[in-house]
């Protein structure tokens, strides 16, 4: 069984890479205005959009303009989503007559979907009307992913351009990401999901009589289309509360597999695109190598922990020790471990199992992945720009050892870049730690905790990690719909998202201004296997050192206790 599952996991990574490579090259062409096969259809639409919106997509922006436009754009998106939720009771496409969403939950949800977090303090089928799902949440699913790509593109331009203030045009980046990448892929994936049995309708919920004769209401809705972008855009906000454990979202083994592939597809593709766009494919491969290294380690630990399971269960002989509670029986341990590692490495946050029910160690990995900044593939765009922040830090710390001012792709990494990179790491970490610390010492924070002891601490820590890291997956076991959590995690998402985006754009602006130093034998090469290892090492050391004390009191102590026969 282990051999078969290992093979399945390996083949998963293989399929992702095989699909991501051509997608990456395609995306690189899209964003550098090279010809693509979709141009004849999309170019007229693109021009039409620019004309309708009255934007000049050829006008270059400096980093401050870029950041300002991006913030304003997201601000509008946030307000629109917030209002749709409040007013959904008055709006059409609401066959279940769901009332307006409670304001703090609406705030939380608006922040959540706008920031690509997709933390859900609500149950989809019982809270959101079809209109909210389609015109509110799904729209933000697309836009937040496109914004992530845009920020990445600005950073790449900073790295590749020389002595200029200009880092591109936000509208151009946004429009191209949507038209050429996100929408076509989502359409294709929706059709695939629907063909497999994922539902796509706007009818009223059905009431059926079960085999036992009981009445059950089955929620309906346009699930397939939302699931497609939920997976592809590393959003993760499920249509239904059970997310991808729900058969209407994830009907068959094939959909499980391809939904999994979809989580990492664009993030991995962007790494290929990155190598292509900076003119050295190996720069992309090295980053990919570091990601795979961390991914394999995380997956290995989670899988082993889940497979080994809880010795206490084994002791009572009712089941195998392998921890199946909280997992979709259809998916099993391997797919659950795979999904957990992928969804937290990326900032997806979709789940097919409840991380709360993982063994403590198995649950630690997803949590740590988020805390590291979701740089293992990461969110669409966000993962790679987060990774590049760590690249800058690695280059700075390690690069000094070759006896030169550290440089990356010929650009000197100096105090401004270091300052911004440190901020980009510090802000989400601070959000997570301070948020969780506040929660565990206030009554409002501790009362919604369902499990006592270290497991409860893990739940709170996970919630704030998920918010600050813009992941959106939940550990469950925590009633996150209280105003304390909706407001605090909502703020955490906003700070965690823009507290990284703004410094990253600042770095892009500063790099674009610099000259490029030609590489030579005296240059610290960032396209070697050694660098991939160093990068992974720096990520682990900085990330792990920051969160080790908190983790020691949560999952680590819990795992040790479980091995010794105590559970929480």
């Amino acid at each position, binding site marked *: 069984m282990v051999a078969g599952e290992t093979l399945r996991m390996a083949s998963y990574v293989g399929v992702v890479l095989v699909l991501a490579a051509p997608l990456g090259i395609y995306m690189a062409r899209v964003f550098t205005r090279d010809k693509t096969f979709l141009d004849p259809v999309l170019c007229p639409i693109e021009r039409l959009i620019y004309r309708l919106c009255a934007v000049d997509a050829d006008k270059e922006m400096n980093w401050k303009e870029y950041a300002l436009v991006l913030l304003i754009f997201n601000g509008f998106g946030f307000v629109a989503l917030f209002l749709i939720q409040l007013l959904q009771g008055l709006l059409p496409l609401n066959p279940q007559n769901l009332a307006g969403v409670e304001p703090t939950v609406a705030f939380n949800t608006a922040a959540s979907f706008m920031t690509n977090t997709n933390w859900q303090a609500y149950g989809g089928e019982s809270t959101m009307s079809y209109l909210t799902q389609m015109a509110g949440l799904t729209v933000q699913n697309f836009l937040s992913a496109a914004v992530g790509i845009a920020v990445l593109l600005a950073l790449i331009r900073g790295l590749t351009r020389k002595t200029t203030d200009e880092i591109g045009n936000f509208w151009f980046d946004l429009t191209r990401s949507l038209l050429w990448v996100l929408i076509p892929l989502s359409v294709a994936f929706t059709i695939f999901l629907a063909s497999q049995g994922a539902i796509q309708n706007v009818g009223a919920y059905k009431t059926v009589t079960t085999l036992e004769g009981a009445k059950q209401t089955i929620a309906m809705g346009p699930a397939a289309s939302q699931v497609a972008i939920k997976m592809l855009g590393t959003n993760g906000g499920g249509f239904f509360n059970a997310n991808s454990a729900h058969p209407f979202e994830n009907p068959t083994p094939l959909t499980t597999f391809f939904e999994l592939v979809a989580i990492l597809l664009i993030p991995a593709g962007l790494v290929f695109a990155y190598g292509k766009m900076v003119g050295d494919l190996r720069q992309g491969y090295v980053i990919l190598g570091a990601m795979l290294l961390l991914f394999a380690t995380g997956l290995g630990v989670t899988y082993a922990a889940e497979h080994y399971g809880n010795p206490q269960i084994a002791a009572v002989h009712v089941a195998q020790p392998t921890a199946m509670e909280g997992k979709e029986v259809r998916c099993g341990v391997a797919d659950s471990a795979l999904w957990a590692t992928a969804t937290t490495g990326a900032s997806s946050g979709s789940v097919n199992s409840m991380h709360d029910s993982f063994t403590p160690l198995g649950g630690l990995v997803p949590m740590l992945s988020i805390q590291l900044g979701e740089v293992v593939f990461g969110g669409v765009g966000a993962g790679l720009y987060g990774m590049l922040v760590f690249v800058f830090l690695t280059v700075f710390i390690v690069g*000094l050892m*070759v006896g030169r001012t550290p440089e990356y792709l010929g650009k000197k990494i100096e105090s401004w870049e*270091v300052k911004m990179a440190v901020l980009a790491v510090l802000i989400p970490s601070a959000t997570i730690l301070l948020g969780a610390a506040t929660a565990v010492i206030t009554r409002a924070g501790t009362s919604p905790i369902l499990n006592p002891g270290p497991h409860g601490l893990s739940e709170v820590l996970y919630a704030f990690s998920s918010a600050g890291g813009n992941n959106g997956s939940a550990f469950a076991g925590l009633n996150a719909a209280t105003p304390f959590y909706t407001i605090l995690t909502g703020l955490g998402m906003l700070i965690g998202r823009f507290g990284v985006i703004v410094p990253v754009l600042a770095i892009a602006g500063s790099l674009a201004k610099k000259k490029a130093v030609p590489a*030579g034998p005296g240059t610290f090469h960032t396209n070697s296997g050694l660098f991939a290892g160093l990068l992974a090492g720096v990520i682990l050391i900085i990330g792990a*050192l*920051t969160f080790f*004390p908190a983790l020691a009191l949560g999952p680590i102590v819990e795992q040790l206790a479980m091995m010794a026969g105590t559970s929480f």
Partner: protein
Amino acid sequence: MSQDAHRHTTRKTGLGRDLILAAVKDAFVKLDPRVQIRNPVMFVVAVGAVLTTLFIIRDAAGGGNRPVFFNFQIAAWLWLTVLFANFAEAVAEGRGRAQADQLRKSRTETMAKQLIGDKQRIVPAADLRKGDVALVEAGDTMPGDGQVIEGIASVDESAVTGESAPVIREPSEERRDVVGGTRVLSDWIKVRITTDPGESFLDHMIGLVEGAKRQKTPNEIALTILLVGLTIIFLLAVVTLEPFAMYSKTVVSVPVLIALLVCLIPTTIGGLLSAIGIAGMDRVLKHNVVAMSGRAVEAAGDVDTLLLDKTGTITLGNRMATEFRPSPGVGEEELADAAQLSSLADDTPEGRSIVVLAKNRFQIRERDIHGIGAAFIPFSAHTRMSGVDLPGREIRKGAADAIEEYVKGKGGTFSPEVTADVEKIAKQGGTPLVVADAHNVLGVIYLKDIIKGGMKERFAQMREAGIKTIMVTGDNPLTAAAIAAEAGVDDFLAEANPENKLELIRNYQADGRLVAMTGDGTNDAPALAQADVAVAMHSGTQAAKEAGNMVDLDSNPTKLLEIVEIGKQLLMTRGALTTFSVANDVAKYFAIIPAIFIAAYPQLAVLNVMRLARPQSAILSAVIFNALIIIALVPLALRGVAYRPISADAVLRRNILIYGAGGLIVPFIFIKLIDLSIVALGLA
């Protein structure tokens, strides 16, 4: 390091007892918060030490069963951590100051003869202002930096340059600059002072090695930002630990939290950072180079293009005779003999080299010039040849065209073989000197630029390390190409003049390269000002010195290579200690975290991989290690990480292994050893 470098380190200042004592005293003086705040990482430690001390005082007053002795030890080690860091900085400063003081000593008591109109007034040298004129006579010490406006004198500049041969100073542009502290040996000069007291570059240099005036360099600022960032991250990790601990129903005392914090923040590099910077300046100074700013030293590490003057840097200053090429029908010894005769009275280096070559090849000795009745014809710009008239012989040597004219005037001919030899030598980058006896052309002497020993290997190393070397010469392209090929430089600029030199630098900079050069003449000033690292020769003009960002007191252009190495070493040392410092944290976590929470969760004993005896001994061991490692690394910070001219990738692998892997492993071993000692001594 090369021979060259060794020679310059002779005037080295060791770590004497006085220096150590002074540094210990300084370490306490530097506890002044206004000084501490300059180093944010150590400031946090100092605040921690103060807080811990306050806790002890509170506990001592309140009594009870608090672990006062344990807290006392923590406080003591925290104070020591701060003091050790201060000490490191003080030692580095002390060494630099000792070096500079040696140079300054001569100046302090100097009296000057100030000239006001026709009157002469004796004033302390330190009172002289810019523009004042002073008379300096034989036996006087130069009262300050200035320019000769009248007179001529031989000056002993060994106090500043280490070079014992006296130099001539007179109002001509090349020789008018004088430096305070040097001594006039003969005659007199009138000097116009060009700097106000406290601004001469000795003072400048002293200021640079003294912490107070030292400005942080760009890379140092960037590194400080990173360290502050890490400090804040760990501050958050530790501060939030208290609520998590409260939730976990355990109490962590504030001194223990402070101990954890101090162990986690990068105190090793934080404590040594400024010492590394000062030591870098100091190493430059040891090579008798005065850097105008730390920035220049740091930039030297980034230099990837070196512009080197051919003469004096790549080649010995003078051409040397290496070969006699006789005309057809003339013996080589005959040519050598004539050549030697004609050069006996020629005391130019070229002339001497001919005599030496004749002696080496054919044992032709010095002879009694009066006995043979020789009349020497000195070189003149008009005839462009020199020679000797003997009874029956008229030996001449000189440039080919001059001799040709001479020989033809005597009715002789210039054979095609000789012409061919002349052309061949010129093509190989040499200078042909033709020797004739009246109308007979005897042959050609091959004068050659001699590449300094070891330069070729040096350039090969530079190439390996990614530094491009470019030879700059006034020679024609053909000659330049030949010498460049022989010396093994990467490129050359022939027929160089100030304009094309400046343009060359600009072109390289436009490609993103950092250029270093040396220069001495006023016409070098624009290029010096443009270059990223510009080393002016002390023997050069004031304009050149002002344009450069370093002055080489020995006027030895080869030193540029060492300066680049020092810059690289400076950056490498910072990187190595940062890596070491961060890697250390892993072990410290494994010491402290289980110790703190073992009471609440006994299971965490598994994390105590070092099997430290008791929670208190574990915490104390980590704190002690953290303090001692600073002292242990002071010598490395002062000396710098060993530099080898190998490729960046090789350097990286080596340093990662030593400081990265070493930084992970070393603390595990030493914390365990310290723990054993503590327990043996009964301290915890």
